[in-house]
């Protein structure tokens, strides 16, 4: 609960952050809301030599409309997303999920980018990004590149952000007026999900599962079945395809698979209301 020694520097712009990343190398970590990184540091599970604080980069905190997309800056806080009229209108799933993260303190500090880059299979927002078909905008010394949410999540706490890179924005295709639901099964309101299901209906449907694999999980077969207009029973039959659920004090594999089915069914019921 007492972190090891580290240096602290503040980045003033994206370019500055990229420069500092290059300067400090592998031993440096970007600090956004700190709500995943600092707990790990306090347990000394992570011991970066330098923290590059990016929270003062104003240009990375915004929500804007860009044609068929809503673009959210990586440093936008969960709370701002939860309350944004623009997000509520065009991406109600994302606004709702942002409001389901932890408790108000967490939502006032944690950032969308931090949650996505952290890549925790038990986190809420990665599932929303997968279900809505978001694209990540990543900047580095060689400029900017775009990666789909599905390719972005690689393994447990591992994403496609390479050393020296920073996630700058997330582009969400609009899902205006489409059905959606988020079902999160927890023992305590502020907990990470034991299992969660993010369901986006409409023209580009998608369903993503929380805490059902070693990484944030897009239920591909189920998503395809939904696009083909399959019956709910057929979606449920494939919802656990390719999952790899963990076993812990709260759940066995069998129980998690059961919950995934139950929550998906409920998500359909909610989404159609």
């Amino acid at each position: 609960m007492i972190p090891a020694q580290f240096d602290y520097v503040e980045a003033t712009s994206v370019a500055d952050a990229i420069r500092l990343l290059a300067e400090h190398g592998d031993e440096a970590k970007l600090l956004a809301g700190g709500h995943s990184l600092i707990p790990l540091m306090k347990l000394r599970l992570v011991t970066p030599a330098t923290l590059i604080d990016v929270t003062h980069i104003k240009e990375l905190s915004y929500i804007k409309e860009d044609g068929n997309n809503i673009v959210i800056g990586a440093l936008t806080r969960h709370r701002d997303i939860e309350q944004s009229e623009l997000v509520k209108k065009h991406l109600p799933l994302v606004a709702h999920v942002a409001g389901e993260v932890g408790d108000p303190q967490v939502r006032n500090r944690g950032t969308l980018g931090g949650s996505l880059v952290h890549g925790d299979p038990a986190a809420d927002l990665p599932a929303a990004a997968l279900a809505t078909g978001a694209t990540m905008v990543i900047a580095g010394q060689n400029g900017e590149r775009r990666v789909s949410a599905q390719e972005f999540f690689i393994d447990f706490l591992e994403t496609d952000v390479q050393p020296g890179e920073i996630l700058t924005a997330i582009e969400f295709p609009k899902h205006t007026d489409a059905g959606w639901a988020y079902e999160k099964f927890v023992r305590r309101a502020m907990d990470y999900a034991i299992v969660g299901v993010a369901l986006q209906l409409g023209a580009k449907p998608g369903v993503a599962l929380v805490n059902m694999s070693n990484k944030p999980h897009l239920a591909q077969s189920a998503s395809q079945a939904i696009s083909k207009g399959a019956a709910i029973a057929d979606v449920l039959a494939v919802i656990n395809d390719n999952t790899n659920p963990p076993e812990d004090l709260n759940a066995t594999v069998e129980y998690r698979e059961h919950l995934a089915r139950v929550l998906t069914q409920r998500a359909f019921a909610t989404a159609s209301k």
Partner: protein
Amino acid sequence: MSLVGARVLRKEDPNLITGNGQYVDDLQPAGCTSMVFVRSTEAHAKIRSIDTAEALVLPGVLAVWTSANIAQLANCPGGLPGLDQPLLAKDVVRFVGEGVAVVVATDRYIAADAAELIVVDYEPLPAVASLSAAMAPGAVVLHEALGGNTVHFQDFENPLDDVFAAAPRTASLHIVNNRCAPTPIEPNVCLADWGRSGLTLWAAFQAPHHLRNTIAQYFGIPQDSTRVVAPDVGGGFGAKINFVPEFFLTALLSKEIGRPVKYTQTRSECLVAMLHGRAQEHDASVAFDNDGRILALKLSVTQDQGAYPNGTGMGLPVLTTAMAAGCYRIPAVAISWRNVVTNTTPVAAYRGAGRPEASYTIERLIDLIADETGVDPVEVRRRNFIPVDAFPYATHSPLAMYDSGNFAGALDELLKHVKYDELKKEQEKRRQDPAAKLLGIGFASWLEIAGFGPPGSLEAFGHLASWESAQVRIQPDGSAIIFTGASPHGQGTVTTYAQIAADELGIDFDRISVKHGDTAVVPQGIGTMGSRAVAVGGEGVKTASGRVYENAKRIAAHLLEASAEDIVIEDEKFFVKGTPARSVPWSEVAWKSFQPLELPGGMEPGGLDSTVFQQVPNFSFPSGAYCCVVEIDRETGGVNIVNMYLVDDCGTVINPLLVEGQVHGGVAQGIAQALFEHMLYDPSGVPRTSTLMDYLVPAASDLPGYVTGRTNTPNPSNTLGAKGVGESGSVGAPPAVVNAVVDALSHLGVKHIDMPVTPIKVWNILEGAK
């Protein structure tokens, strides 16, 4: 207007809620240093060697100690001779979290870095992390001196075999009372400064004088220059009445390095190093007739003491077995208990300390009788209650001489709030509808033993005595200061004592302050535990205030040239009854009480100052009736409390706001035990719930609203009539919740579910019934 009984806002709160409280960790005396532990990562191992070389040379490090540095010192006080915990492990570690070494450095970060550099070479030994493992034949023995792992075994005097054989019906349950971690918001914290003028120890503690007495004795130093201060304390729940190695280590290290030494436990340490609670297993049997009347009860308790048994932990099964029969008239009761050591964190008092375990088991048994006989659980309770006219009521235990109660009255009051018949119909309806959530209704008529205590009761736990001190001192301006030995840790004692004193003295509530927690300020004291602060300490405030008031009346009478018997007080003015026009204010009486020329003959100056060592003849017996209504999600197994009705009988209520606060908090902890919290170990003794992500302390959003009600049978052992309410909620809530869950599932043949009732447990039951 009487202040006793009024909803007075807490005097404590303006400071606490604006961040102006002062906890030990807020203190930062000049030159303050920081101590950090290296704690065992092994549940049971020999220590081959400890390499401190790298830590010692880290800049900023002032000392690194292992047991070798304190070889001449006695073990931590409070334990059992020969089985007590060393201040730092000697040769062997016996639980994960046991202190192995300490580092003192100029700041906490350096100390933590140095602690990381210490290398302990362990030779793992087989570990026993559960009662069954510890008692298995051939199990590894924790303490060679003991020969086995049973510390103490008290067999049945008469196992009642004949009664059980002859009874129309019998039923039994094996019950696990889950181990809990007390988890106060403030963990263990202390700060020692041992200089030329003596030792001062600031400690987050519930009984500062008890610590002063012990630490002076331990070091062989005089008490006049040993001072213990418990400033604001952020909760304790019983875990802060036991001595822990850090008190003695910070003191010694301060003497050694000549600077103040502070230790602030981290949350991770708190979960494994602060003493745990509960951790009992019960084998319980009842004999009863076809109408649900109980004929006999037989209870055998096995108490997990953790690695190092202590006096408080050893007392737990004594209290459990004493209260085994609850509110019921049971013709024959047989009790037996066993204390066993395991490679786990030591166990001691935790809110309720032995009584929640008792009420849980007897209330589960009552529901089992209902289930077996088909008699409604409410009716089974009524048929077996000790009637109102049977008090004082002698139980099977000499400890528990019930002095008062109205158990049927509390249940009647409860049923005014609960729409029981409607709920039962609704339950039936929902059972028929596969899409509906299952409904369960659970009752608990609970009784506990509190108000510790009568002479001898706390001495048995190593305390100086069982009275509580109260000093009431009038200042020259007529304001009053109360000094109490019942040092609070969140109870609101400053407010309740001022209310009691305001009524007795006729002094305005706002001109009464309460001082506590500092052995250099408060004459003597015992502490706050066992729901005694009002029942014993508050009674002392009343007694002392009454004595001061009598003397004040004599002075007022002298000034008014009247007789003391005729003097009355109103709005801080003394006057002769019937003639309010001619009066003397309290301020004048107070001022003149210090002036020999103004005093009546024979009265000495300074007479408005009284110190009382309040004794009480018996324990108190708070009781009540709770009802919990749960819904169960048939698909997920999730349990949701929809309503919780709580009728408490704590005798006279000093402040309803504070009583409700205690009930809400205690019930929250009871619900926590029933649904959320469980300190779990794997078979090798590694804690599986060592962070607050796994050890699930519920927050406000996880708890229901409460409907509270009250009955009042005054405590006959004090003049206030107050019984104590600090632990009640944690005694009554667990059985109400679990009874509700079992009721919801009873149509599936479910008789019992061990706590905590997790969704997966319920789901497995529902699946099994398909």
